Protein backbone atom coordinates (compact mmCIF):
# COMPACT_ATOMS: atom_id res chain seq x y z
CA UNK A 1 0.00 0.00 0.00
CA UNK A 2 1.09 3.50 -0.83
CA UNK A 3 2.12 5.53 2.24
CA UNK A 4 -0.33 8.36 1.58
CA UNK A 5 -3.19 5.87 1.29
CA UNK A 6 -2.13 4.16 4.50
CA UNK A 7 -2.28 7.52 6.33
CA UNK A 8 -5.82 8.17 5.12
CA UNK A 9 -6.93 4.65 6.04
CA UNK A 10 -5.45 5.17 9.50
CA UNK A 11 -7.26 8.48 9.86
CA UNK A 12 -10.49 6.78 8.87
CA UNK A 13 -9.91 4.05 11.42
CA UNK A 14 -9.34 6.73 14.07
CA UNK A 15 -12.90 7.91 13.42
CA UNK A 16 -14.08 4.66 15.04
CA UNK A 17 -12.79 6.16 18.28
CA UNK A 18 -15.05 9.19 17.84
CA UNK A 19 -18.03 6.86 17.41
CA UNK A 20 -17.06 4.93 20.53
CA UNK A 21 -16.85 8.20 22.47
CA UNK A 22 -20.37 8.97 21.26
CA UNK A 23 -21.52 5.73 22.92
CA UNK A 24 -19.70 6.78 26.09
CA UNK A 25 -21.19 10.28 26.19
CA UNK A 26 -24.64 8.88 25.48
CA UNK A 27 -24.15 6.41 28.30
CA UNK A 28 -23.19 9.18 30.73
CA UNK A 29 -26.22 11.34 29.98
CA UNK A 30 -28.56 8.35 29.60
CA UNK A 31 -27.67 6.90 32.97
CA UNK A 32 -27.92 10.33 34.57
CA UNK A 33 -31.39 10.92 33.13
CA UNK A 34 -32.54 7.45 34.13
CA UNK A 35 -31.52 7.91 37.75
CA UNK A 36 -32.56 11.58 37.83
CA UNK A 37 -36.11 10.57 36.94
CA UNK A 38 -36.11 8.04 39.75
CA UNK A 39 -34.95 10.59 42.31
CA UNK A 40 -35.44 14.12 40.94
CA UNK A 41 -34.62 15.65 44.33
CA UNK A 42 -31.02 14.44 44.23
CA UNK A 43 -30.47 15.21 40.54
CA UNK A 44 -29.43 18.87 40.82
CA UNK A 45 -26.67 18.09 43.28
CA UNK A 46 -25.03 15.66 40.87
CA UNK A 47 -24.70 17.98 37.88
CA UNK A 48 -21.03 18.64 38.58
CA UNK A 49 -20.29 14.91 38.51
CA UNK A 50 -22.39 14.56 35.35
CA UNK A 51 -20.15 17.04 33.55
CA UNK A 52 -16.95 15.50 34.92
CA UNK A 53 -18.07 12.16 33.49
CA UNK A 54 -19.02 13.84 30.24
CA UNK A 55 -15.62 15.57 30.04
CA UNK A 56 -13.73 12.34 30.68
CA UNK A 57 -15.70 10.40 28.08
CA UNK A 58 -15.47 13.18 25.54
CA UNK A 59 -11.73 13.70 25.94
CA UNK A 60 -11.00 10.15 24.77
CA UNK A 61 -13.07 10.68 21.64
CA UNK A 62 -11.34 13.99 20.97
CA UNK A 63 -8.00 12.24 21.26
CA UNK A 64 -8.97 10.01 18.33
CA UNK A 65 -9.81 13.16 16.37
CA UNK A 66 -6.33 14.48 17.19
CA UNK A 67 -4.82 11.22 15.96
CA UNK A 68 -6.74 11.55 12.69
CA UNK A 69 -5.62 15.18 12.26
CA UNK A 70 -2.00 14.29 12.97
CA UNK A 71 -2.15 11.46 10.42
CA UNK A 72 -3.62 13.71 7.72
CA UNK A 73 -1.74 16.96 8.28
CA UNK A 74 1.43 16.24 10.25
CA UNK A 75 2.71 12.71 9.66
Amino acid sequence: MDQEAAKLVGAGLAAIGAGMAAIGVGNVFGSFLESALRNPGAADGQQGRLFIGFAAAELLGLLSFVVAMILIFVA
Partner: protein
Amino acid sequence: MAAEQAKVDPMHQFAIEPLFGSANWEIAGYNIAFTNSALWMAIAAVALWVFVAGGMKRQLVPGRWQMAVESFTGFIDDLLEANVGKEGKKYVPYIFSLFMFILFSNVLGLVPLPLTIVGIHPFTATSHFTVTGVLAIISFLIVLLVGFWKHKLHFFSLFIPHGTPLVMVPLIFCIELVSFLVRPFSLGLRLFVAMMAGHVLLEVLSSFVIGGINSGMAIGPVVSILSFVLMLAICALEVLVAGIQAYVFALLSSLYINDAEHLH
Protein backbone atom coordinates in the same frame (compact mmCIF):
# COMPACT_ATOMS: atom_id res chain seq x y z
CA MET B 1 -11.83 16.45 -12.29
CA ALA B 2 -14.58 18.72 -10.98
CA ALA B 3 -14.31 17.22 -7.51
CA GLU B 4 -10.71 18.38 -7.26
CA GLN B 5 -11.65 22.00 -7.96
CA ALA B 6 -14.53 22.12 -5.50
CA LYS B 7 -12.42 20.77 -2.67
CA VAL B 8 -12.33 23.19 0.27
CA ASP B 9 -9.58 23.44 2.81
CA PRO B 10 -11.34 23.15 6.18
CA MET B 11 -8.14 24.12 7.99
CA HIS B 12 -7.81 27.49 6.29
CA GLN B 13 -10.11 29.14 8.84
CA PHE B 14 -7.57 28.46 11.58
CA ALA B 15 -4.70 30.17 9.79
CA ILE B 16 -3.10 32.88 11.91
CA GLU B 17 -2.31 35.98 9.89
CA PRO B 18 -0.44 39.00 11.17
CA LEU B 19 -2.54 42.15 10.86
CA PHE B 20 0.18 44.70 11.54
CA GLY B 21 3.59 44.93 13.16
CA SER B 22 4.98 41.88 11.41
CA ALA B 23 8.05 43.82 10.26
CA ASN B 24 10.44 43.93 13.18
CA TRP B 25 8.47 43.46 16.38
CA GLU B 26 10.61 40.80 17.93
CA ILE B 27 11.33 39.56 21.43
CA ALA B 28 14.27 37.18 21.73
CA GLY B 29 13.99 36.20 18.08
CA TYR B 30 10.23 35.53 18.18
CA ASN B 31 7.91 37.64 16.10
CA ILE B 32 5.17 39.28 18.17
CA ALA B 33 3.02 40.69 15.37
CA PHE B 34 -0.57 41.59 16.23
CA THR B 35 -2.45 38.68 14.63
CA ASN B 36 -6.12 37.97 13.96
CA SER B 37 -6.01 35.62 16.96
CA ALA B 38 -4.81 38.47 19.19
CA LEU B 39 -7.45 40.77 17.71
CA TRP B 40 -10.31 38.38 18.54
CA MET B 41 -8.97 37.74 22.02
CA ALA B 42 -8.87 41.52 22.54
CA ILE B 43 -12.44 41.79 21.23
CA ALA B 44 -13.52 39.04 23.64
CA ALA B 45 -11.82 40.86 26.54
CA VAL B 46 -13.42 44.21 25.63
CA ALA B 47 -16.85 42.59 25.19
CA LEU B 48 -16.45 40.92 28.57
CA TRP B 49 -15.41 44.21 30.17
CA VAL B 50 -18.41 46.03 28.68
CA PHE B 51 -20.74 43.23 29.76
CA VAL B 52 -19.53 43.23 33.36
CA ALA B 53 -19.22 47.04 33.61
CA GLY B 54 -22.83 47.37 32.49
CA GLY B 55 -23.96 45.22 35.41
CA MET B 56 -21.99 47.01 38.14
CA LYS B 57 -24.74 49.51 38.95
CA ARG B 58 -25.49 47.84 42.32
CA GLN B 59 -29.17 48.66 42.21
CA LEU B 60 -31.29 47.17 44.96
CA VAL B 61 -33.81 46.01 42.38
CA PRO B 62 -31.60 44.82 39.52
CA GLY B 63 -32.47 45.57 35.92
CA ARG B 64 -32.13 43.02 33.12
CA TRP B 65 -28.44 43.67 32.45
CA GLN B 66 -27.44 43.58 36.10
CA MET B 67 -29.50 40.42 36.54
CA ALA B 68 -27.62 38.76 33.65
CA VAL B 69 -24.21 39.61 35.13
CA GLU B 70 -25.28 38.62 38.62
CA SER B 71 -26.59 35.26 37.47
CA PHE B 72 -23.17 34.52 35.95
CA THR B 73 -21.23 35.58 39.07
CA GLY B 74 -23.72 33.69 41.24
CA PHE B 75 -23.27 30.61 39.06
CA ILE B 76 -19.47 30.66 39.49
CA ASP B 77 -19.88 31.42 43.19
CA ASP B 78 -22.10 28.34 43.62
CA LEU B 79 -19.69 26.22 41.56
CA LEU B 80 -16.78 27.07 43.86
CA GLU B 81 -18.89 26.79 47.00
CA ALA B 82 -19.96 23.28 45.97
CA ASN B 83 -16.51 22.06 44.87
CA VAL B 84 -14.01 23.86 47.10
CA GLY B 85 -16.09 25.01 50.07
CA LYS B 86 -15.70 28.32 51.86
CA GLU B 87 -12.01 28.62 50.90
CA GLY B 88 -13.22 28.75 47.30
CA LYS B 89 -14.45 32.33 47.76
CA LYS B 90 -11.06 33.84 46.94
CA TYR B 91 -10.88 32.04 43.59
CA VAL B 92 -14.16 33.49 42.31
CA PRO B 93 -12.47 36.34 40.35
CA TYR B 94 -10.07 33.96 38.62
CA ILE B 95 -12.60 31.26 37.74
CA PHE B 96 -15.13 33.92 36.69
CA SER B 97 -12.67 35.59 34.30
CA LEU B 98 -11.55 32.22 32.97
CA PHE B 99 -15.09 31.00 32.37
CA MET B 100 -16.34 34.23 30.82
CA PHE B 101 -13.28 34.71 28.61
CA ILE B 102 -13.53 31.18 27.22
CA LEU B 103 -17.29 31.53 26.78
CA PHE B 104 -16.95 34.87 24.96
CA SER B 105 -14.13 33.61 22.70
CA ASN B 106 -16.10 30.46 21.85
CA VAL B 107 -19.32 32.32 21.10
CA LEU B 108 -17.60 35.15 19.18
CA GLY B 109 -15.97 32.52 16.98
CA LEU B 110 -19.43 31.28 16.01
CA VAL B 111 -20.79 34.67 14.91
CA PRO B 112 -22.15 33.99 11.41
CA LEU B 113 -23.20 35.91 8.32
CA PRO B 114 -23.49 39.68 9.01
CA LEU B 115 -19.77 40.02 9.60
CA THR B 116 -18.56 37.68 6.84
CA ILE B 117 -20.43 39.70 4.20
CA VAL B 118 -18.26 42.72 5.04
CA GLY B 119 -15.20 40.49 4.81
CA ILE B 120 -14.51 40.11 8.52
CA HIS B 121 -14.09 36.47 9.44
CA PRO B 122 -14.62 35.71 13.11
CA PHE B 123 -11.69 33.79 14.48
CA THR B 124 -12.04 31.33 17.34
CA ALA B 125 -9.08 32.08 19.57
CA THR B 126 -9.83 28.98 21.66
CA SER B 127 -9.32 26.71 18.64
CA HIS B 128 -5.56 26.96 19.08
CA PHE B 129 -3.61 24.89 21.54
CA THR B 130 -1.26 27.80 22.28
CA VAL B 131 -4.16 29.80 23.74
CA THR B 132 -5.96 27.03 25.62
CA GLY B 133 -2.63 25.55 26.71
CA VAL B 134 -1.60 28.83 28.34
CA LEU B 135 -4.97 29.07 30.10
CA ALA B 136 -4.53 25.50 31.34
CA ILE B 137 -0.97 26.22 32.51
CA ILE B 138 -2.21 29.23 34.49
CA SER B 139 -4.71 26.96 36.28
CA PHE B 140 -1.99 24.36 36.85
CA LEU B 141 0.44 26.95 38.25
CA ILE B 142 -2.20 28.25 40.65
CA VAL B 143 -2.70 24.67 41.89
CA LEU B 144 1.06 24.19 42.33
CA LEU B 145 1.60 27.56 44.05
CA VAL B 146 -1.37 27.22 46.40
CA GLY B 147 -0.53 23.59 47.15
CA PHE B 148 3.12 24.18 48.00
CA TRP B 149 2.39 27.48 49.78
CA LYS B 150 -0.30 26.01 51.98
CA HIS B 151 0.99 22.47 52.64
CA LYS B 152 4.73 22.90 51.97
CA LEU B 153 6.28 19.51 51.07
CA HIS B 154 3.26 17.77 52.58
CA PHE B 155 1.63 18.55 49.21
CA PHE B 156 3.24 15.36 47.86
CA SER B 157 0.83 13.32 49.97
CA LEU B 158 -1.70 14.23 47.26
CA PHE B 159 -0.10 11.45 45.23
CA ILE B 160 -0.62 8.74 47.87
CA PRO B 161 -4.26 8.04 48.72
CA HIS B 162 -5.07 7.18 52.33
CA GLY B 163 -4.71 3.52 53.26
CA THR B 164 -2.33 2.56 50.44
CA PRO B 165 -0.34 -0.56 51.41
CA LEU B 166 3.35 0.25 51.87
CA VAL B 167 4.40 -2.08 49.04
CA MET B 168 2.21 -0.23 46.59
CA VAL B 169 3.36 3.29 47.55
CA PRO B 170 6.12 3.72 44.90
CA LEU B 171 3.89 2.44 42.10
CA ILE B 172 0.84 4.49 43.14
CA PHE B 173 3.05 7.56 43.59
CA CYS B 174 4.35 7.28 40.02
CA ILE B 175 0.89 6.72 38.54
CA GLU B 176 -0.65 9.61 40.46
CA LEU B 177 2.27 11.87 39.57
CA VAL B 178 1.84 11.16 35.87
CA SER B 179 -1.91 11.70 36.05
CA PHE B 180 -1.27 14.98 37.89
CA LEU B 181 1.25 16.19 35.33
CA VAL B 182 -1.03 15.31 32.40
CA ARG B 183 -3.81 17.55 33.77
CA PRO B 184 -2.87 20.84 32.08
CA PHE B 185 -2.39 18.98 28.81
CA SER B 186 -5.80 17.28 28.88
CA LEU B 187 -7.45 20.50 30.09
CA GLY B 188 -6.12 22.55 27.18
CA LEU B 189 -6.48 19.77 24.62
CA ARG B 190 -10.17 19.19 25.39
CA LEU B 191 -11.17 22.81 24.78
CA PHE B 192 -9.01 23.26 21.68
CA VAL B 193 -10.07 20.04 19.97
CA ALA B 194 -13.75 20.48 20.78
CA MET B 195 -13.77 23.95 19.22
CA MET B 196 -11.64 22.93 16.25
CA ALA B 197 -13.64 19.78 15.48
CA GLY B 198 -16.89 21.75 15.52
CA HIS B 199 -15.59 24.40 13.14
CA VAL B 200 -14.14 21.81 10.75
CA LEU B 201 -17.49 20.02 10.74
CA LEU B 202 -19.36 23.25 9.93
CA GLU B 203 -16.94 24.05 7.11
CA VAL B 204 -17.23 20.57 5.60
CA LEU B 205 -21.03 20.69 5.76
CA SER B 206 -21.10 24.15 4.16
CA SER B 207 -18.92 22.83 1.35
CA PHE B 208 -21.56 20.11 0.79
CA VAL B 209 -24.23 22.83 0.49
CA ILE B 210 -22.25 24.78 -2.11
CA GLY B 211 -20.99 21.66 -3.89
CA GLY B 212 -24.51 20.27 -4.17
CA ILE B 213 -25.80 23.39 -5.93
CA ASN B 214 -22.78 23.62 -8.24
CA SER B 215 -22.78 19.94 -9.20
CA GLY B 216 -25.51 20.46 -11.80
CA MET B 217 -27.03 17.07 -11.09
CA ALA B 218 -30.75 16.67 -10.38
CA ILE B 219 -30.06 15.35 -6.89
CA GLY B 220 -27.77 18.30 -6.09
CA PRO B 221 -30.34 20.66 -4.52
CA VAL B 222 -31.71 17.82 -2.37
CA VAL B 223 -28.23 17.17 -0.98
CA SER B 224 -27.80 20.92 -0.42
CA ILE B 225 -31.05 21.30 1.49
CA LEU B 226 -30.41 18.24 3.64
CA SER B 227 -26.87 19.42 4.41
CA PHE B 228 -28.16 22.90 5.22
CA VAL B 229 -30.72 21.56 7.69
CA LEU B 230 -28.04 19.42 9.30
CA MET B 231 -25.72 22.43 9.41
CA LEU B 232 -28.35 24.50 11.25
CA ALA B 233 -28.73 21.72 13.80
CA ILE B 234 -24.96 21.44 14.22
CA CYS B 235 -24.75 25.22 14.69
CA ALA B 236 -27.20 24.95 17.59
CA LEU B 237 -25.12 22.09 18.97
CA GLU B 238 -21.98 24.23 18.66
CA VAL B 239 -23.54 26.98 20.78
CA LEU B 240 -24.27 24.32 23.40
CA VAL B 241 -20.72 22.94 23.13
CA ALA B 242 -19.27 26.47 23.51
CA GLY B 243 -21.09 26.79 26.83
CA ILE B 244 -20.37 23.25 28.03
CA GLN B 245 -16.64 23.45 27.25
CA ALA B 246 -16.30 26.75 29.11
CA TYR B 247 -18.18 25.20 32.04
CA VAL B 248 -16.07 22.03 31.99
CA PHE B 249 -12.86 24.09 31.96
CA ALA B 250 -14.02 26.13 34.96
CA LEU B 251 -15.33 23.02 36.75
CA LEU B 252 -12.11 21.03 36.33
CA SER B 253 -9.99 24.05 37.33
CA SER B 254 -12.01 24.38 40.52
CA LEU B 255 -11.68 20.64 41.22
CA TYR B 256 -7.90 20.87 40.85
CA ILE B 257 -7.87 23.91 43.13
CA ASN B 258 -9.85 21.84 45.63
CA ASP B 259 -7.07 19.23 45.51
CA ALA B 260 -4.52 21.93 46.29
CA GLU B 261 -6.61 23.38 49.13
CA HIS B 262 -7.64 20.16 50.82
CA LEU B 263 -5.32 17.32 49.65
CA HIS B 264 -8.08 14.74 49.12
